[in-house]
């Protein structure tokens, strides 16, 4: 679970960094890079975090 949390955190940091960079310009490319790349990193980071919660609940090691 800890490894998944780390990876989720790193993915979210990538998403946030791309968001910050994209806000440095006001162009269609910056908007699309935010929508596509940031969105992808946010979605995968949050999904991985939620998956880590679910998988830790059902892990036999936690019993």
């Amino acid at each position, binding site marked *: 679970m800890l*490894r998944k949390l780390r990876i989720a955190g790193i993915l979210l940091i990538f998403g*946030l960094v791309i968001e910050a960079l994209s806000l440095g310009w006001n162009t269609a490319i910056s908007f699309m890079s935010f929508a596509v790349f940031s969105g992808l990193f946010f979605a995968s980071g949050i999904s991985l975090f939620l998956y880590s919660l679910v998988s830790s609940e059902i892990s036999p090691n936690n019993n």
Partner: protein
Amino acid sequence: MIFPSTLVFFLIGASILLILVVVIRPSITASREGKIVAFLALFVVPLVAAGVGASEHMERSEQTRFCLSCHIMQPYGRTLYVDDPSYIPAAHFQNHRVPADQACYTCHTDYAMFGTIQAKLNGLHHVYVYWFGTPTQPIRLYHPYNNRECLHCHDGARSFEDSPTHTAMMGDLKSNKLSCTTGGCHDTFHPVDKLSQAKFWKRTE
């Protein structure tokens, strides 16, 4: 004064710091408090940061500079500076009948319910066609220009209502049976093919 974009950057910075706490020391999640921190850092805060960022981008996408950031739109942007009052967009832009920093959006949005969403979806379609398709030259509107967009500002305005020409056809104008852009009326927009012969207005600083 703190600008909204400054707040977004602050939020992004704070989010990164909070996430780093979990990334560097994931073992904090063993305690109840640590679990709450992880939930905030890896779920709540990124969602808020993404939402605020999306809102900021949406706001910025209404700016003239944003529309003209695609090369294909630049000649259309130049028509805003043509020194000829018969060019409807130029006359509106130069006389601040529309906000200069939102000139494209003000006339090309849809003043109906969900019009803003429709405008954003159209914008995404523009980007798709620009990168993955073949844009028509010259660019064409998806639908004939609706009088509703003109009347959003002009309806009720004295110069519009008092004009005998408008009065004679007011019903047809308001019901969109007769377009404001009919030939012989307000029919000069963005003739990009005539830019080489045009004289341009230079703003005095």
